[in-house]
C-alpha cells in the first residue's frame, strides 16, 4: 500500500453501528501500510452536517472517502464533486442510488436483507400467521425499500401470511417504546411475528418481548445491538440480520488504496445489483439465530478474509 493514501471513514452520524470502523481503519493502516484511515464522525445525524465534515476533511488533505450515505440520493452530489477533485469515494454499509460517482457500494443491500429476514420469520412461523413490521424514518429511501421487500416476501409466502401493521418513523427510543408497547397492548394477542428493519425498533421490540416474557411471538431483528443478541440467546427473539461493519471498514480502506494506486474495476466484474445500484458488493449479510449467535464474530471475520483474498482477482485490474 502507499503511505500517501489518506482514507476518511465517514458514518451518517454518531451511531454504535459504525463503532467497528475505527479499529478496522487502524488495522488497515497497519496491515496495508496506508498513510491514514481515520474514522470521522459528523456532529449530528444530518446530511448537511455530513457534507460539511467531508468538505472540511478534503480541505485537510484526505484523498479517499468511504461514506455511509446520509441520503441515498442526496449524497451523490458531493461524491461527484469529490470525484472532480480526483478523490475516489465509495458508499459503505449502505448504497447511494445510481447514477453515481461512487466507485462501488460495499455493504448490505438493505432491501434484500429485509427480504431475507422476513423469509426467515415466515419460516419460523411455519409459513402462516399475522406479522407486524417496525421500521425507521419514512423519508429515508431505504425505508421504502424495506417496506416493499417485506411485502414481497409475504406475498411469496402465499395466502398464509398477512401484514397487519407497519409502524414507521420510530428511530428515537422514547417514541419507539411508546408506539411498540401500544401495539403490543392492542395487537399482542393476534400478531404471530414481528420483523424490524431499523436499529432502534429492533432494540425496543426485543426489550418489549423480553419484558412480556412472550416466546409465542416470533421476531426477526436487525443488526447487533447487545439487547437483541441477548434476547436471541434467551429465546425471546428468533434471530437477527447481521452485517459486517468491521469488514466494511477494513476492506473498504484497502480498496481505496488500490484505486489510488491506479487500479480500476474490471469491466466484467461480477457486480451484484440492487434496487439502488448495480455496482454492489455484499460485505456479508447473514442471518443469525440462537444456534450461531455466539460464534457469529468469527464467521464474519472468515467472510471478510474470503472477500479480501479474492478481491483483487475478481474485481480489480491493476
Amino acid at each position, binding site marked *: 500500500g502507499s503511505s500517501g493514501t489518506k482514507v476518511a471513514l465517514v458514518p451518517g452520524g454518531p451511531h454504535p453501528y459504525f463503532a467497528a470502523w475505527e479499529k478496522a481503519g487502524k488495522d488497515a493502516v497497519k496491515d496495508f501500510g496506508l498513510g491514514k484511515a481515520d474514522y*470521522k464522525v459528523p456532529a449530528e445525524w444530518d446530511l448537511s452536517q455530513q457534507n460539511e*465534515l467531508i468538505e472540511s476533511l478534503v480541505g485537510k488533505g484526505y484523498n479517499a472517502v468511504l461514506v455511509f450515505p446520509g*441520503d441515498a440520493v442526496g449524497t451523490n452530489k458531493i461524491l461527484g464533486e469529490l470525484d472532480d477533485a480526483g478523490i475516489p469515494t465509495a458508499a459503505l454499509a449502505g448504497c447511494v442510488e445510481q447514477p453515481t460517482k461512487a466507485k462501488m457500494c460495499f455493504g448490505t443491500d438493505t432491501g434484500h436483507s429485509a427480504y431475507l429476514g422476513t423469509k426467515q420469520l415466515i419460516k419460523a412461523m411455519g409459513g402462516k400467521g399475522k406479522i407486524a413490521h417496525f421500521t425507521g424514518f419514512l*423519508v429515508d429511501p431505504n425505508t421504502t425499500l424495506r417496506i416493499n421487500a417485506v411485502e414481497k416476501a409475504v406475498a411469496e409466502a402465499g395466502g398464509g401470511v398477512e401484514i397487519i401493521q407497519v409502524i414507521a418513523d420510530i428511530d428515537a427510543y422514547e417514541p419507539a417504546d411508546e408506539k411498540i408497547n401500544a401495539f403490543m397492548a392492542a395487537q399482542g394477542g393476534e400478531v404471530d411475528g414481528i420483523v424490524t428493519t431499523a436499529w432502534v425498533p429492533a432494540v425496543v421490540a426485543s426489550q418489549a418481548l423480553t419484558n412480556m416474557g412472550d416466546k409465542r411471538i416470533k421476531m426477526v431483528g436487525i443488526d447487533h445491538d447487545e439487547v437483541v443478541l441477548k434476547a436471541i440467546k434467551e429465546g425471546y427473539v428468533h434471530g437477527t440480520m447481521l452485517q459486517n461493519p468491521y469488514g466494511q471498514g477494513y476492506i473498504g480502506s484497502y480498496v481505496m488504496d488500490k484505486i489510488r494506486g491506479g487500479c480500476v474495476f474490471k469491466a466484467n466484474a461480477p457486480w451484484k445489483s440492487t434496487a439502488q445500484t448495480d455496482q454492489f458488493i455484499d460485505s456479508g449479510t447473514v442471518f443469525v439465530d440462537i444456534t450461531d449467535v455466539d460464534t457469529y464474530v468469527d464467521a464474519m471475520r472468515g467472510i471478510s478474509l474470503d472477500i479480501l483474498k479474492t478481491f483483487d482477482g475478481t474485481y480489480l485490474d491493476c
Partner: protein
Amino acid sequence: MTKKLPNFMFTNQFGLFCIVIIFVIIFSSITDGFTSRFNIYALSRVVAIDIMIGLAMMVVILTGGLNLALGAIGVCAAMFGGWCMETMGIPVIPSIFLILGMGSFLGYINGVITVKTGVHSFIVTLATMSIYFGLMTMLTEAEAFRRLPASFTDFGSIKLFNKYVSPLLIISVTACLTLFYLFKFTDIGRKLIAAGANPDAAELSGISVNTMFIYCHMLSGFLGAVAAIMLTTRIGAAIPSMAGQLGMDWLLPAFLAPVIGGTLLSGGKLSVFGTMLGAILVTLITNGLYLIDVGEFWIRFFLGIILLIAVILDKTREHFTLKSVIVS
C-alpha cells in the same frame, strides 16, 4: 449634549463582526486548509443556506412568534419544485416561481390560523409541521426527484471569484440587502416591526396587526422556499430528508443565527445583518472545529463552549460601549 463613540460601535452587529474576524484569524493560523480555496468555497455555500434559513425564522420571531414548520415548508416547496420540473416538465424559471409561491402559501396558512384562532404560533406551526411534512411524505411516498434539469442543479456548483465563492452566497447577501431595505426604508417594513413590538399600540395607531402578522408568516415561507431551492441545487436533487425528520434539522441554525444576531424573541426588534453574521459565526466555528482535531465526538461540546464565549464577549462589549458614553 453628549460625546459619542461612532454610532455603529454600539450595534450588536459590530460586536459580532469583530468576533467573526477574531475567529477567522484564529482558525486560519492554527488549522491547515481553513483558507484553502476548496474550504472557503464550501464555507460560502453552507453559510449561504444558513443565512437564508436564519432570515426565514427571523421574520416570524419579529412577531414574537416562532415558525417550527419552517423546515417542513422548505422540504414541501423543494419536493413540489421537483415534481414540477421532473414530473410535469415545467421549465426552470416558472418552476422557481411556483416553488416560491408554494412556500408563501404554506406560510400564509400558518399566519391565518395563528391570527384567526389566537393560538400561539408555536403550537400552530408545531401542528402544521406534522401536517405539511405528512402530506409531503404521503404524496411523494418519500421518493426523491433526482432528474432535475442540469441548468438548475449545476447552479449549486458554480464557482465565482476565481473559484472562491458560491453564487448561493450572492443570493443570500442580496436577500439581506432587500430585507434591510424593507425594514429600514419602507412603511410596510416599519409597520411589521411596530406590530411585532406592541400589537395593541400598533392597532390603535391605525396598523392592521393581523395583516402584518400574516405577511410575516408568508415572508417566512417565501424565504424558506428560497433556502429550499438553494439546498436543492446544492444537493442536486429534491429529497424528502433534506431537512431531516419533519424538517427539524433546520430549526437549530434557524434559531441560532437571528438570536445571536440580536433579534428579540419577544418580537419587535430584529437585525438583518446580525442574523447574517450570526449564521457566519456558527458555520465558521463548526468548520474550524472540524479542521482542528478536537477528537471525534467532542465537536458539539466545543461548539457549545465557543458559542457561549462568543455571546458573552459580545455582551461585555455592549456594557463597555454603553458605559463609555460620557455625559457633558
